[in-house]
């Protein structure tokens, strides 16, 4: 039985915290702006004419 005290059963928590950390780093590096700029223009490659 895996219990809450077992470190393996808390991996999801470490993963979630890592995700939040990565999001903050991405934010500081301006990566969200890159994503937004790509997402608000029609992506011709995505629709097969680019």
């Amino acid at each position: 039985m895996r219990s809450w005290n077992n470190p393996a059963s808390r991996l999801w928590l470490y993963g979630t915290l890592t995700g939040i950390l990565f999001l903050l780093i991405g934010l500081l590096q301006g990566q969200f702006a890159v994503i937004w700029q790509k997402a608000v223009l029609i992506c011709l490659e995505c629709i097969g004419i680019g």
Partner: protein
Amino acid sequence: MKHMKHLRLTIQIIYTIFTNGYIYGFLSGKIYQGRLKYVCVPGLNCYSCPGAVGSCPLGALQALLNQRGFQIPFAVLGFFFLFGSLLGRTVCGWLCPFGLVQDLLHRIPLFRKRKRLPFHRILKYVKYAVLILFVCIGSSFLFGGFAKIPAFCKYLCPSGTLLGALPLLTANRLLRSQIQGLFFWKLLVLLLIILLSVKIYRPFCQYLCPLGAVYSWFNRFSLVQICRDRENCTSCNACRKACPFDLSVDEISRSPECIRCGACVSVCPAGCLRFSTKNGRSQNR
């Protein structure tokens, strides 16, 4: 069984409408340009779909890899870790618009249904190859003219063709005039996946989806799991028969292939399978 099926279908439909609810886009042949597109949605959802209000995580990853030079795409990795650690492939089962499309296609009463393709044991690894070759390497090193290209979106993604290209081209005459050979290649890929989906359960998810490949790495330890009460399990195999991916009772939830659709939970006669957010996968009560 039906209760869980209906619940999942309802959540899938509500989620798809919620994340693709920009009606004006469908009418005008334009896409949403608001601030919500700073954020990635968990499932495969082309951001060039006229209704999309969020960004596709795979498109966003490729956009970052397409930048000049190389930088670690922390923003998208952050979304992957967040969604993956909390939900694993539950995202595929419950929150993916293209998964919903495949589910609906599989309900069409045509052909004799099959759970898997022949050579499944080998083919199931193709999605990891697609992730590495098309998404990571392709988007970092393939050039079209002077700019890098999002290789997966350009050559493979059927979601972009179905949810992005077809509605946009229907409503936008200018775009329609630019159709070339590449579009017909993508249309062919989409048609093949549509046909396969009628016969086989979610072929794109099982064999090609790089997003499913990413979330599969989180399946073992994600917060949401399907727990099994080992003491009361009679090993009757009802769960395996109900599982659309043909997973055994030991593979359910833990396998990288399991999308936590819940078919096993609702069919278990002893009631020893259940969705849980605590204590990992197996329990003795």
